[in-house]
């Protein structure tokens, strides 16, 4: 599974993209975020407040309850500030 981080979340995790093997017990975005948060102190900081985190699965907005699959591209990012 491909994971992407943007803006200050990318700076905390120290990587823009990482390839992970999805653990069997991880079925939703929420569970995925918990798992990723356990990878490093930086990951934990990036994902500590899920209320302010936006998620996209395969480049479409998703929610914490959305199901994830091994071949998904899942992106975590802060609220957007373009325009």
């Amino acid at each position, binding site marked *: 599974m491909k994971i992407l981080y*943007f*803006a*200050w979340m990318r700076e905390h995790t120290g990587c823009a993209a990482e390839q992970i093997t999805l653990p069997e017990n991880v079925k939703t975005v929420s569970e995925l975020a918990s798992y990723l948060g356990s990878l490093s102190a930086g990951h934990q900081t990036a994902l500590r407040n899920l209320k302010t985190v936006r998620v996209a699965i395969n*480049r479409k907005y998703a929610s914490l309850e959305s199901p994830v699959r091994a071949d998904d591209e899942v992106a975590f*990012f*802060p609220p*957007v*500030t*373009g*325009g």
Partner: protein
Amino acid sequence: MQVTVLVCEDDFDVGAETEALRGTGVGAIASFTGIVRDTDGTGPSQHLIALTLEHYPQMTETEITRIVAEAGERWPLAAVRVIHRVGRLAPQENIVFVGTASAHRDAAFESAAFIMDYLKTKAPFWKKEETQEGAHWVDARLSDDEALEKWKRR
């Protein structure tokens, strides 16, 4: 509806973009140009050195195209052009262009404002500001989220 969506580092030419929106039946063109301001908005002393725009390639185009398609369902539009720059931008440089063409002015004005409001809150771009006191990521503004409310009531 003719739709052009571009996300790129290069600057754009407002005159040429507006010209490209002309066509049969078009009586009204509304456009919006977003420009890097000299301050970060927290005070006159916070002089901005530069702004860096990060984005999520592929998703930005997809999301903007989806927003434009929704505008096309709400208003009778002949053409829409959206350009959003990424990378490092100095004060006074262009950031974003939104242009809409229709038979009448209401459709042109409202759809351009609609696209800007959604672009601000949905398109995956992030701004990092460099001031003399360092660099920081721009916080999302609650007023931008609130701006969407007026379109939901319709």
